[in-house]
């Protein structure tokens, strides 16, 4: 237990969002505490698919496409900095990535989605290509006969997200941040220009507080005048044994990791807080993956798991400072891997300065208050 209990910033949540912001703030000389739960936590940061993904993001909010592209563009430098400071290789690669379609109907729907995305006014430039089977086969010769086409975006990539999480923790602790596990926040009280946090691990006082607790932000937000409408959305993942490298590009539902395993995902289910695996969904995941790459059927499955995404009703992030309790911020999204570079290098300096830049206004939860019709 640390003797020092007063901090510039208390970050609530030790997952990828909280750790990236905590690391970023610590590098700027801030005294930071990162408060985490324990093994009871849902831990989306340990269950994710580890894509650093750009294609098709931002339909309905082109600013999100720009925000995503910016983080993707910053990722290589971010990964280099982490490696230089901590020695951990996050295995970031950006060879471009694919979405594969198993029927003409899927391919048409995909092409339409991409067209609508890029037809939006204020849309940032994101290069992509719709490919028919012959073009695809040149880049992915092992695709199965059912693959009719797909989309390719040269900006897409992936990483080892578990190592990223470990590297961020190591990095911020090296620089003096206090990581405080088993500190479940019970109350946050703004008092005298500070925030007093009562936790299961003791009290913590900080000048600012950042809510980065994933689905826990809904509960925490109400303590500091922030409405954070997030809900859990289940995704399931199947993992094979380690194989020699054979898949040079990540596909949105299939990627070979730097360590050789092949991850298959990524289902979407509204199942509340139920984070159990179901064989029906994992069977469909495996079956579709084998249709895309028949070679996969030779590999043994070694693990399956389910995890809960942190989802807003429109699927976009929330970044906001409380109007009622200035100094209280929320940062929440379901793309903690892709957006890690932005959280560390763009959001952290804004929090240090005490003000989110106007470019983030669009991500305020106030957007949910506007009547739709």
């Amino acid at each position, binding site marked *: 237990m640390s003797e020092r209990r007063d901090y510039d910033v208390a970050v609530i949540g030790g997952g990828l969002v909280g750790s990236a912001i905590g690391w970023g703030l610590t590098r700027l000389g801030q005294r930071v505490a990162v408060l985490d739960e324990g093994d009871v936590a849902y831990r989306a940061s340990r269950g994710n698919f580890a894509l650093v993904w750009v294609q098709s993001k931002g339909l309905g909010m082109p600013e999100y496409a720009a925000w995503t592209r910016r983080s993707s563009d910053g990722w290589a430098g971010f990964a280099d900095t982490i490696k230089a400071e901590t020695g951990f290789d996050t295995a970031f690669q950006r060879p471009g990535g694919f979405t594969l379609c198993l029927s003409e109907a899927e391919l048409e729907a995909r092409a339409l989605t991409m067209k609508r995305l890029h037809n939006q006014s204020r849309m940032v430039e994101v290069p992509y290509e719709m490919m028919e089977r012959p073009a695809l086969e040149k880049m992915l010769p092992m695709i199965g006969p059912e693959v009719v086409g797909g989309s390719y975006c040269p900006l897409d990539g992936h990483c080892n997200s578990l190592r990223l999480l470990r590297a961020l923790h190591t990095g911020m602790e090296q620089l003096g941040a206090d990581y405080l596990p088993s500190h479940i926040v019970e109350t946050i009280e703004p008092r005298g220009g500070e925030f007093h946090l009562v936790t299961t691990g003791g009290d913590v006082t900080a000048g600012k507080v950042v809510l980065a607790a994933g689905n826990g932000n809904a509960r925490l937000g109400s303590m500091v005048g922030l409405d954070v409408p997030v809900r859990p959305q289940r995704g399931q993942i199947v993992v094979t*044994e380690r194989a020699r490298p054979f898949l040079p590009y990540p596909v949105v539902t299939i990627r070979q990791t730097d360590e*050789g395993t092949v991850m298959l995902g990524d289902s979407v289910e509204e199942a509340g807080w139920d984070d159990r695996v179901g064989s029906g969904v994992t069977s469909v995941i495996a079956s579709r993956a084998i249709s895309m790459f028949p070679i*996969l059927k030779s590999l*043994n499955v070694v693990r399956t798991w389910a995890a809960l995404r942190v989802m807003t009703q429109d699927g976009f992030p929330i970044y906001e400072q409380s109007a009622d309790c200035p100094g209280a911020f929320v940062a929440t999204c379901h793309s903690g891997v892709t957006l890690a570079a932005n959280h560390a290098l763009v959001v952290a300096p804004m929090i240090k300065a005490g003000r989110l830049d106007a470019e983030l206004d669009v991500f305020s939860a106030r957007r949910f208050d506007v009547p739709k019709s």
Partner: protein
Amino acid sequence: MFRRAKEAGAASVSLSVDGQTIAAQAGDSVAAALLAAGITACRTTPVSGAPRAPYCMMGVCFECLVAIDGVGSRQACLTRVRDGMRIETQQGKREAGR
């Protein structure tokens, strides 16, 4: 290293291990046949490359993985020998598709 408790009785079968012929007894598991023939390293690990041998002999430890008749990562302790069976030891990560 290993000696059979009972030599006689069962019919003899022959297997190839990495191209070399060994004799086994009908009813042996592949893992038992390898150990009886003095082959104690059936694979190297995908992570460090350390040699591995059959260990639990009952299907839980997955140390005895070998390629059998062209299919990789089969549990040698749960597979009965068959005359003419082709066994290959595995080096590191397996190759997808075989």
